[in-house]
């Protein structure tokens, strides 16, 4: 976590059930376009994408250390890249909240490559802090956590197959991400079947279900 604060990203072994997860390349063309040959699709938080994944011990320990014990799961999406998709432009998941202030992290994006081992991202280490963009982007192999303010680019897909990368967003409870896509998809059954400790991450799902229930009465 200390290294994460310094550089804005952290890599390491994953303890979630990654090997059991398969995302169909048929999702290509759906969801939000992210440039040539690349789309982001909200996926349902259930089955292999359920709490053993998004509330794995390593993930929980990491995001709670960075964002606080009351942090929430704010998004779960798959990025589908066609074979030969070129590298994307430099971007960041979220702009700094107040451009002239150095603030603690407000959201963490957990990146989980599925399938081949080729790097999915190139990151500008330290660019989550003022002056926010400085230095070259370097490839990151394997799973990683990003400060959502960190500048990065999506690496080209050099393989001959379409591939998927999971992106899970954790945030402070008051943070709002106004992007147009639905941030989190979950059924009532999946919510109710989530163990209590993991369910603390589902404040927004619990609120939506509660309000749906009240509106129906």
């Amino acid at each position, binding site marked *: 976590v200390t290294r994460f604060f310094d550089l804005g990203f952290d890599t390491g072994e994953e303890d979630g059930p990654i090997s059991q997860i398969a995302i169909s390349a048929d999702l290509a063309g759906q969801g939000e376009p992210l440039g040539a040959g690349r789309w982001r699709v909200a996926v349902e938080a259930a089955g292999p994408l359920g709490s053993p994944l998004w509330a794995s011990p390593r993930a929980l320990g990491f995001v709670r250390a960075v964002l606080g014990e009351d942090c929430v799961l704010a998004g779960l999406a798959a990025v589908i890249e066609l074979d030969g998709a070129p590298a994307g432009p430099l971007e960041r998941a979220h702009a700094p909240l107040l451009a002239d202030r150095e603030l*603690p992290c407000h959201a963490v994006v957990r990146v989980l490559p599925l399938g081949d081992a080729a790097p999915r991202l190139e990151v500008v280490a330290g660019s989550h802090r003022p002056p926010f963009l400085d230095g070259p982007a370097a490839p990151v192999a394997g799973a990683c956590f990003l400060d959502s303010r960190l500048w990065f680019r999506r690496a080209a897909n050099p393989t001959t197959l379409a591939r998927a990368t999971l992106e899970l967003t954790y945030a402070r409870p008051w*943070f709002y991400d106004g992007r147009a896509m*639905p941030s989190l998809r979950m*059924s009532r059954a999946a919510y109710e079947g989530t163990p209590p400790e993991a369910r603390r991450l589902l404040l927004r*799902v619990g609120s939506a279900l509660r309000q749906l229930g009240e509106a129906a009465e």
Partner: protein
Amino acid sequence: MERATLTLEPDELAAGALSSTTVTRAAGLFDHFGYLVIPRAFETDLICNLQNGYFELIARGLVSGRGRGMDVGDRRYMIPVEMRAPFDDPRLYAAPRLLPILERLLGADLVLDSFGSVIAMPGAAAQARHKDHDLLFDAERGARLPCHAVTLVVPLIDLDAETGTTAILPGSHRVALGATVDVEPALPLIARGGCYLMDYRLSHFGTANRSTRIRPILYIVYSRPWFRDERNFYSLPALAMPAEARARVPLRLRGLLARLEHAEVVVA
């Protein structure tokens, strides 16, 4: 006269718009005290429409079957109000005498975070002192940051010593809840048409209603685009506007109501 009162000039009242000097003065007072009282912020006919609309909702059992809302004290309820006529009037949520001040405080990309009402019934006791939301990150840092959200309070009756009002602790937006603030509370007793703005970090409480009348106020919370109040709106909808009212929102104000267009969670 309250310490942080903005008196509008006759030409500003006539034109329905503020000079840049007034906006600067208003933002300075707000930043210093954490609140601002603005008499005559709204047209009389608008407030009459809102008052009639609200009493009609009460007569119908309150607000589209959403029940009595949430208890927020003794005989005091927070009740969501759908933004349908007359509550969808842009002169209310984008008041020309207020929006320039709000934009100065929160940035041009500010949004509506919540809209509703609080009603103190006759005989309601005073509330406990509170802040509507925790300070961001941690108390020390959160107290030093610029304002991230503002509550606009629009009384639907004249507020006087009998009906009561909101007791505001000036300057308390710069300290954690419970920290000593050695000031007398400000008590904005204003006539209909007036309003007060409160920094979301301000310590405050509703005073007792010693009258025989109900004391309803509308609240409209404006925020920076990245902030949402998850604390007060777990069970209650923060913002609701039916499709027919949404279709009437002027194009220039669609950004202000952007929250209506995005579901954070989709129940599959």
